[in-house]
């Protein structure tokens, strides 16, 4: 009975990762108000999952003094500099890596 009661709670508190390293993803191009940890310059850009960092409280919820749950998977996403900044000068292999929460990726 106890384990039955725990199961729905743990399911609610963490969102399962939808992506794995190597997957190609696109950052949502959205401009909601609030405390957003997705920088403006990277919204709408495409990159590749470098690693899964774990699951963390959603900062947009935490900033409103809510629980931050369900926790969101956090990824490091790798972007090619020349794709992000068309006028970029440097090695074509230069990259930019940004931490992005799952609900900002599609």
């Amino acid at each position, binding site marked *: 009975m106890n384990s039955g009661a725990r199961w729905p709670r743990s399911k609610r508190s963490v969102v399962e990762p939808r992506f794995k390293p190597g997957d190609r993803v696109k950052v949502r191009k959205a401009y909601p108000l609030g405390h957003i*940890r*997705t*920088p403006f*310059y*990277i919204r709408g850009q495409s990159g590749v999952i470098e690693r899964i*960092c*774990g699951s*963390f409280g959603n*900062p947009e919820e935490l900033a409103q003094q809510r629980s931050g749950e369900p926790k969101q998977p*956090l990824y*490091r996403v790798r972007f090619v*500099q020349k794709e992000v*900044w068309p006028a*970029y*000068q*440097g*090695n074509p*292999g*230069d*990259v*930019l*890596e*940004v*931490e*992005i*929460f799952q609900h900002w990726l599609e």
Partner: protein
Amino acid sequence: MKDSGNYQPYSYFQLMEVSLRELLVEKGVVTEAQVADEVEKMRHRTPAIGARVVARAWMDDAFRMKLLESGSRACEDLGIEVGALKLVVVENTPAEHNVVVCTLCSCYPRMLLGIPPEWYKSRNYRSRAVREPRSVLAEFGLRIDDKTKVRVHDSTADMRYLVLPMRPSGTEGWNEERLAAIVTRDCMIGVAVPKLN
């Protein structure tokens, strides 16, 4: 607070800090002693802690591997408290140079490097390090060869980053203390590389 005897009105942010602190104490959320204790702890965090981690990684390959796999766990082995934030260590190689920035605010591995320098928090560094890292590094006196890739890490959420620089040649046979002495704060942010004096 430092008292130079030269009294001036509080600035906006000083006033905010004092008001918030007094309110938290009044409401019993924290005590004055806890605040003083945290301030004191922060004063004792300096880049020497990070330099010790780097020197150990240069001397001990098993530690280096563990550090790259899980920065937090490797630091705990050395008795360094990393806290809730996860430490990601990125390694410089002849093929790749790493540099760290927080474009949104000033996220920084304080547990290993202490309080960030003013320039790290400046709009200039934060906006340009992601867009023209090679020019920014050149302004620090660091020219990265075109054949070497530059990898910029924007520290936007719960990770904190430390650059593991390359051990310079000419340091063979050095002990950990001597190695740590050439690892500066800027080397671990990635805007400099260790040099022999």
